């Protein structure tokens, strides 16, 4: 079957999906026969990770174009699935529904931002970079603008942004591995790392592509199955996405009835760190237009600048396929993102509605404390109640929960069998692993291809280049895991920073490289380094007590960074000589799909 593996893809992944569903059913039967919750959790994570590692091993390669761009033969729809897995991180999977649950509308700017960015990817960049024929994003910058300094600046921005991102992902794999396998977090991080490296080390981009498709299938089943199941079980609607309007309205009624009582600061001190109560209305507009739009805009421009996403479109067979593939990517992302608010709605209603058997608000403390799932999640430090007003019954403002609990605990609260919780753990693991893989590969490829091969040793043979690439992969992975083990920042915060860093340094140099012929080397270098420096400065300034301006916060500092980048790039470009004829011709060639790519098939 090896020969025409590509033609057999639908069949291969069809069998794989069937096998995975079979595995879920076997686990469900095993649960009925008395298999313990812990054993089910271990089985799910171990089984799926083993399959990914197997795919990684089968995809091993010794060819540069297979290692860097999967041989440029990934079909449109499959590349869409791989990109969706690459894109949806542990944060999307585990934390997003929780964020919506607690912060409502203001948080949902991320939903709009993390999808709208793909319009920019499709229309401004992906097809043109595919035509260029580059292996990495700095490869485009280095060839379009010319010179080692431009190439190196791009590597710097890429590394800063992707490394910020990857520590968060390794952190997430560690969290899930430590819960599912029941080992301490410090070791679990390295278990996660080894699983990640198994997928990417032997096959590079080819290995990552085919494991990401497999991971997408696991994560989307793991996300959608509980949402549909809970919705049907609660009688909320057969198809939750179209049928939860009554539930949303009911939450609004209950919020009115309970009121948002503000807790005294002294009371809040007794709440464990990281847990929050419901303080914001579920469906009301609770953010100013600029707060919402600036966050969405930062995420959209960041999406178009993140190299691990862009490089997925280097693997399609043609320019046309690259465009379509962006559409498929967003479709597969849409399936999960549009379900997150539904999960948040179901989760919230099942907890706060006194008319539902699962509702806990209005019950006595003794009753709530006797509930099995409350005890479990309280022990896991994800749920907490405290009788602030001393009346003996639980009020809305006396109930606290961790953001992760919305995804992780809702199946159990709704009374679904434990097999679903095991499935969700496997889904979270798939989401975090697939993103970490893409990121580590993006960094290692940029350093091995652009710094080592293009700048240091242009005569290196393929075998040596790929060896360097693999050694770097391991080094970067371990560096990421070491920092992740220190647990410096939360998962979501560092993910958002990564977007801001990427847009500060790369958005305009990439876009203007295609759309503005006059853009030259000096301008691009100024734009990349100046933008990154300005963004980083703003972040440090706001973090150290600076007041900020124009409502730009530490989550949206990329707006400032990219504005500086744009101004510098335009001014410096216009002050220096225009690019030579050969470069202008190159830009003309990039703008039409037909003809040879700018860089050779193997370079």
């Amino acid at each position, binding site marked *: 079957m090896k020969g025409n593996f590509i033609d057999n893809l639908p069949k291969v992944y069809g069998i794989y999906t069937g096998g995975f569903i079979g595995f879920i059913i076997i686990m469900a039967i095993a649960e009925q026969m008395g298999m313990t919750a812990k054993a089910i959790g271990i089985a799910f994570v171990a089984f799926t990770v083993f399959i990914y590692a197997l795919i990684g091993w089968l995809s091993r390669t010794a060819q540069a174009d297979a290692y860097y761009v999967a041989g440029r033969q990934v079909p449109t729809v499959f590349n869409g699935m791989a990109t969706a897995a690459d894109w949806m991180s542990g944060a999307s999977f585990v934390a997003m529904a929780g964020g919506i649950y607690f912060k409502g*509308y203001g948080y*949902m*700017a991320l*939903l*709009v*931002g993390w*999808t*709208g960015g*793909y*319009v*920019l990817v*499709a*229309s*401004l960049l992906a*097809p043109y970079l595919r035509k260029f024929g580059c292996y990495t994003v700095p490869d485009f910058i280095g060839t379009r603008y010319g010179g080692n300094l431009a190439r190196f600046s791009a590597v710097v921005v890429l590394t800063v942004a992707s490394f910020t991102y990857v520590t968060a992902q390794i952190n997430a794999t560690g969290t899930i591995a430590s819960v599912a396998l029941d080992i301490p977090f410090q070791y679990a991080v390295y278990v996660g790392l080894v699983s990640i490296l198994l997928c990417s080390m032997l096959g590079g981009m080819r290995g990552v592509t085919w494991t990401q498709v497999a991971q997408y299938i696991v994560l989307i089943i793991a996300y959608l199955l509980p949402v549909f199941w809970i919705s049907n079980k609660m009688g909320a609607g057969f198809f939750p*996405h*179209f*049928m*939860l*309007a*009554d539930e*949303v*309205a009911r939450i609004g009624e209950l919020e009115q009835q309970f009121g948002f009582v503000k807790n005294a600061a002294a009371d809040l001190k007794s709440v464990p760190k990281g847990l929050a109560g419901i303080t914001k209305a579920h*469906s*009301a*507009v609770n*953010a100013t*237009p600029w707060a*919402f*739009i600036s966050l*969405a*805009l930062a995420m*959209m421009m960041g999406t178009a600048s993140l190299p691990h996403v862009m490089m997925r479109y280097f693997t399609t*067979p*043609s*320019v*046309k*396929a690259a*465009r*379509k593939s*962006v*559409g498929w990517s*967003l*479709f597969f992302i*849409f399936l999960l*993102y*549009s379900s997150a*608010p*539904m999960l948040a709605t179901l989760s919230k209603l099942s907890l706060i509605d006194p008319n539902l058997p699962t509702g806990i608000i209005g019950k006595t403390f003794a009753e709530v404390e006797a509930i099995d799932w409350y005890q479990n999640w309280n022990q896991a430090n994800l749920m907490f109640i405290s009788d602030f007003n001393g009346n003996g019954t639980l009020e809305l403002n006396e109930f606290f929960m961790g953001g992760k609990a919305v995804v992780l605990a809702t199946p159990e609260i709704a009374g679904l069998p434990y097999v679903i919780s095991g499935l969700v753990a496997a889904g979270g693991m798939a989401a975090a692993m697939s993103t970490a893989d893409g990121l580590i590969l993006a960094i290692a490829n940029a350093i091995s291809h652009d710094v080592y091969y293009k700048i240091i040793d242009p005569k290196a043979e393929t075998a040596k280049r790929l060896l360097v690439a693999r050694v770097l992969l391991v080094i970067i992975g371990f560096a990421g895991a070491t920092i992740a083990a220190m647990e410096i920042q939360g998962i979501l915060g560092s993910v958002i920073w990564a977007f801001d860093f990427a847009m500060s340094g790369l958005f305009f140099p990439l876009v203007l490289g295609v759309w503005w012929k006059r853009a030259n080397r000096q301008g691009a270098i100024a734009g990349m380094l100046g933008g990154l420096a300005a963004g980083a400065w703003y972040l440090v300034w706001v973090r150290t007590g600076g007041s900020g301006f124009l409502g730009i916060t530490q989550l949206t500092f990329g707006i400032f960074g990219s504005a500086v980048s744009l101004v510098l790039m335009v001014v410096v470009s216009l002050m220096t000589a225009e690019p030579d004829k050969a470069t202008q011709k190159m830009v*003309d060639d990039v*703008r*039409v*799909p*037909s003809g040879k790519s700018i860089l050779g098939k193997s370079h």
Partner: protein
Amino acid sequence: MSNQQKHWEKTRGLLFITLAIWFVFSIGIFLFGAEMNKVTGPFGYPWTYWFTCQGSLGAFVILIFWFANRQEKIDEEFGFSEREDE
């Protein structure tokens, strides 16, 4: 004007239309978020809430496929489309 210049002119035109639609769904709507949310929208959800959950997201998916088809037509019109995936 050469064939290639005409092709680029049309491509740029399509880009502006695409970005204009993108602007409406990613930014325009949310300028009036508070006002619009008072009105009941599709499937009974409040309008702004529905757009942030599903509406804008779905619009982006459709927009990208529409854009890709239009761009393919432009490429074909000027003879710049790829030959049978090389």
